[in-house]
């Protein structure tokens, strides 16, 4: 039976949602949740725990949204009903909004007993979300330096995650990235099951690893790498204590990265092609496969899930305008941006020089400290980036950064999305691909501009 306070909260939230739509405030995925949580602060716990198939939470610096979407795709293939904060509204109020949208006016979620819960979760929201949802599976994708002005430090995030684990059910399964020593550290002291995932493909080992966010083991020892893929991710071991990369239960090999898709073999089985590319998406696929296995989804559904995964908003999305294809690669932090650049370098091997637009904003959701762009290896594209455009509120910062990275002078430096788009159209021909690397709000602005010109057919999620 639904708690009366929860039922009242659901009604209040639904009214807020209807009012918001009527007022055309649109896109407000958090508002209904915010209102409902005022009435029942434990709404996420009260509704979330009724999802009888169990809950999965997915967190990490990068890959939360895409990993969750691949898991959702596998659940679709498995015909498993689920609730998912698909819009990526990943704070408590966003989860509350998702849950109350599924609830009936009596306050309960229909068929809750047979439904699963899938929640992408902000790193700093993990302690509250885990306490409320009591998940059966907790997925940690990776830990990189993100927007320091918002979260403080990498160590702070790791501390929040340990707090979350103290509040998790004792028998929950941790799904952990074996190749990220900061994530692997979470297994220390965990008595429940752990499902490790990792990459086993020597072809992607590199010496130029880029930004580095995990210098020391908890024991104080340095990490050494037998194989490094990027940043601090690879086959690591501590030089002082016994810790080393655990052998993963779910691994990928035979990876081939294409322009729009990637091929990989899971545990040496027959290769599968997924409509996402880049090594970072291979890791997202691994995290999703491991999570599905830990959740009891069958192998065939998982294969289908991978094969039909859809890119999330602004991640490898292709937008056509006046015969040009704008390929959007959201980049929110050094690790994510480096991954995009390494992917573009691979693409450029077959078709140089690339036309590139980079957009940098410094609003709250982007992180207000733009110095992170100096931890991004724009140098790797120095010889393959041809004509390029600088956009966003901090376009001039990019012009300086690229000057030092050895890129040519920008064809234009424009703050406004409209002017930037005009400049791009003026400097390209029909049939051209333009590789666009925006920060989060810069992507929203550009997408709104494209939408205004009729270029984005789909609704803004």
């Amino acid at each position, binding site marked *: 039976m639904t708690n009366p306070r929860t039922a009242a909260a659901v009604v209040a939230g639904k009214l807020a949602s209807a009012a918001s739509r009527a007022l055309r405030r649109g896109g407000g995925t958090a508002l209904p949740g915010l209102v409902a949580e005022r009435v029942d602060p434990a709404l996420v716990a009260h509704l979330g725990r009724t999802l009888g198939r169990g809950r999965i939470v997915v967190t990490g610096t990068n890959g939360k949204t895409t990993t969750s979407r691949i898991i959702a795709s596998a659940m679709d293939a498995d015909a498993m009903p689920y609730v998912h904060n698909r819009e990526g509204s990943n704070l408590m109020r966003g989860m509350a909004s998702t849950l109350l949208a599924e609830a009936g006016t009596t306050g309960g979620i229909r068929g809750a007993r047979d439904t699963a819960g899938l929640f992408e979760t902000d790193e700093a929201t993990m302690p509250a979300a885990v306490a409320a949802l009591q998940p059966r599976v907790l997925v940690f994708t990776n830990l990189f330096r993100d927007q320091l002005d918002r979260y403080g430090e990498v160590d702070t995030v790791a501390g929040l995650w340990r707090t979350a684990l103290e509040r998790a059910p004792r028998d929950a399964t941790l799904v952990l990235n074996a190749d990220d020593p900061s994530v692997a550290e979470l297994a220390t002291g965990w008595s429940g099951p752990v499902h490790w995932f990792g990459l086993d493909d020597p072809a992607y080992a590199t010496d130029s690893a880029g930004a580095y966010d995990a210098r*020391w083991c908890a024991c104080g020892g340095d990490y050494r790498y037998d194989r490094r893929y990027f940043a601090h991710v690879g086959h690591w071991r501590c030089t002082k204590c016994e810790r080393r990369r655990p052998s993963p239960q779910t691994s990928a090999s035979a990876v081939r990265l294409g322009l729009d898709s990637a091929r990989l073999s899971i545990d040496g089985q027959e290769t599968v092609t997924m409509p996402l590319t880049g090594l970072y998406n291979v890791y997202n696929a691994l995290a999703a496969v491991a999570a599905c296995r830990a959740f009891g989804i069958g192998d065939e559904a998982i294969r289908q899930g991978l094969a039909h995964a859809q890119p999330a908003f602004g991640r490898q999305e292709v937008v056509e305008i006046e015969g040009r294809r704008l390929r959007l690669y959201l980049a929110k932090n050094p690790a994510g941006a480096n991954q995009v650049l390494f992917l573009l370098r691979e693409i450029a091997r077959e078709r140089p020089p690339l036309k590139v637009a980079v957009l940098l904003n410094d609003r709250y959701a982007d992180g207000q*400290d*733009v110095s992170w762009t*100096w931890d991004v290896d724009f140098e790797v594209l120095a010889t393959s980036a041809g004509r390029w455009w600088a956009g966003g509120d*901090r376009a001039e910062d990019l012009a300086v950064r690229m000057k030092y990275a050895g890129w040519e*002078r920008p064809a234009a*430096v424009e703050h406004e999305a409209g002017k930037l788009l005009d400049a791009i159209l003026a400097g390209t021909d029909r049939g051209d691909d333009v590789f666009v690397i925006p920060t989060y709000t810069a992507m929203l602005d550009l997408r709104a501009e494209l939408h205004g010109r009729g270029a984005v057919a789909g609704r803004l999620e």
Partner: protein
Amino acid sequence: MIALRYRCESRGIGFSLTEVNIGDSFDPAAFDLVLIGGGQDREQRRIADDLARRGEGIRMAIEDGLPALVVCGGFQLFGRRYIDQAGEIIPGIGVFDLETRHPGPVADRCIGDVVIETAEGEVVGFENHGGRTYLAPGQAHFGKVRYGAGNNNGDRTEGARHKNAIGTYLHGSLLPKNPALADALIVAGLRRRYGPGVGLEPLEDTAETGAHANAVRITEKRRS
């Protein structure tokens, strides 16, 4: 670093970089310029011990005119002491006569864009620090705050300087966007080695000055 290299090499000045890690041997007097950055608390403690062992040598080299740029955590450790949230004292090497206290969780971190006035002109950057730094009477500041919190969100000072050593909370690609500051450090290093007659030819800095001006514009809009 990257800016110093570029601004030297563009003028035909040789540039070589030596990374000094914890425990490495290091003779500061043999170098023309020293840079120290910040880090997380965990890293800070390890570096504090290492720096303490080198304190005497660094102080002597700086008295001799060695230019240094020490940022954030490095700046704090160049003071007399750092008192952390728990009241524990981490001794600094005392290049600057100042101390830094962490006010604990009651106070917010100082985070945001900053514009200051310095002897090298207007300087823009980004600050992100929990500790509040207080200069002793007679200790020179690096700049006067126009926008931002500065040393302690109170006395409008930012950073500290002693001879050619500059300590500051500002980062945010500090040297690329403030080419005059980068050049001042380079000139100080060259003059220490080759005498007071050394000067630098100007570089084409359109991109740098554009980013500087844009940062000032954005800071004015946000902070006023």
